[in-house]
């Protein structure tokens, strides 16, 4: 892997390569360049996941012609697909090196150990929504109970905007979450449940289920489950599985015709 990256940089296949390096005992994202080829010997995969594609998006915004190499797990690849669709990155300028994925229900073996949510505490099990739940189990609660449980989760919010800031597919210059006409600003907790539901709606056809938002949430709101539900609807109604391909999203309204077509029943 290290030699391959060195080769890529030497041959000019990529101008920079975003990977990880052990710095002060922490696996941190690191930008390898051709100016310092010997550094590539320090390339590691790193157990902690960072959104390298979000960094690539920020670099590409300043340097559109730069060829960027990237270490990708499955989640990074899905995020890249979404970023291609929404014209935040150009596929021609991105070179990916696939590495082993995080352990999950889909993949038994994985290298990343920072993904699985911790076991929920008794109070959360009793009155909140367990982060480990799947959509079906969460829907088994009665409507009233479910509403109470979700409201319990939402009212914990500190409004740190961490879910948005860490999200690899959140790139809008103007964010609805900061728009005072849409959501009351200047108070904590934020306007619940609107704050979270607005974000959830915007995740439809965008969320690639990487779990970084839940990882970054200081109060453990079951965000991943919420967005999974939203994407289930997108998948049911439009037959569109976000991130699995670079096909246009049903929500992409730009272009000759609007294709907001439901899937044939």
């Amino acid at each position, binding site marked *: 892997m290290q030699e391959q990256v060195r080769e890529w940089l030497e041959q000019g296949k990529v*101008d920079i390569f975003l990977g990880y390096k052990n710095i002060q005992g*922490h696996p941190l*994202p690191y930008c390898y360049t051709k100016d310092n080829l010997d550094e590539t010997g320090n390339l590691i995969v790193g157990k902690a996941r960072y959104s390298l594609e979000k960094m690539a998006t920020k670099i590409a915004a300043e340097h559109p012609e730069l060829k960027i190499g990237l270490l990708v797990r499955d989640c990074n690849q899905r995020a890249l697909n979404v970023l291609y669709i929404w014209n935040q990155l150009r596929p021609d300028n991105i070179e990916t090196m696939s590495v082993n994925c995080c352990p999950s229900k889909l993949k038994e073996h994985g290298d990343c150990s920072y993904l699985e949510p911790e076991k929920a505490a008794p109070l959360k099990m009793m009155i909140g929504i367990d982060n480990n739940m799947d959509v079906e189990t969460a829907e088994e609660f009665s409507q009233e109970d479910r509403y109470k449980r979700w409201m319990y989760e939402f009212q914990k919010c500190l*409004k740190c905007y961490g879910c948005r800031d860490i999200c690899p597919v959140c790139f809008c210059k103007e964010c609805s979450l900061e728009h005072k006409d849409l959501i009351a600003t200047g108070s904590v907790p934020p306007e619940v449940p609107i704050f979270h539901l607005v974000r959830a709606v915007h995740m439809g056809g965008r969320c690639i289920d990487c779990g970084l938002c839940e990882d970054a949430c200081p109060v453990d709101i079951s965000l991943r489950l919420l967005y999974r539900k939203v994407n289930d609807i997108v998948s049911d109604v439009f037959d569109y599985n976000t991130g699995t391909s670079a096909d246009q999203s049903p929500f992409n309204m730009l272009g000759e015709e609007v294709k907001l077509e439901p899937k044939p029943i």
Partner: protein
Amino acid sequence: MDFNIIPSVCSYCGCGCGVLFQVLDGRLIDTLPMKTHPVNEGKLCIKGWSLHEHVVSDKRLKSPMIRKNGELQECTWDEAIQTAADKFKSIIRDHGPDSIGVLASAKITNEENYLVQKFARAVIGTNNVDHCARL
């Protein structure tokens, strides 16, 4: 093109969350929580998430200023420190040292904060010392 990730510690409160600064072409563009940091484990509050904003803010002062004839004017550090020292002296002379209070900061180091209280107690002669992190 120059892109660096700089590990650092949040300078706001006493928790000391680990943060990563993203620096593109010498300009601080974003802050990220450090996932492996023992204090925050990949989480941050809104102040931590916005650390880069006050560094690159347009409103940030780049030189000391003195108000002359009702208007703030840029000046040298020597001039600013001399003016502050003269004013402090005259206030202490007229109203006593307890007429002055010193606000330290959570954004500076332990050692600097030690110096601040030493300055308040030994130089000015007051016990009126507090800090901004008492939120």
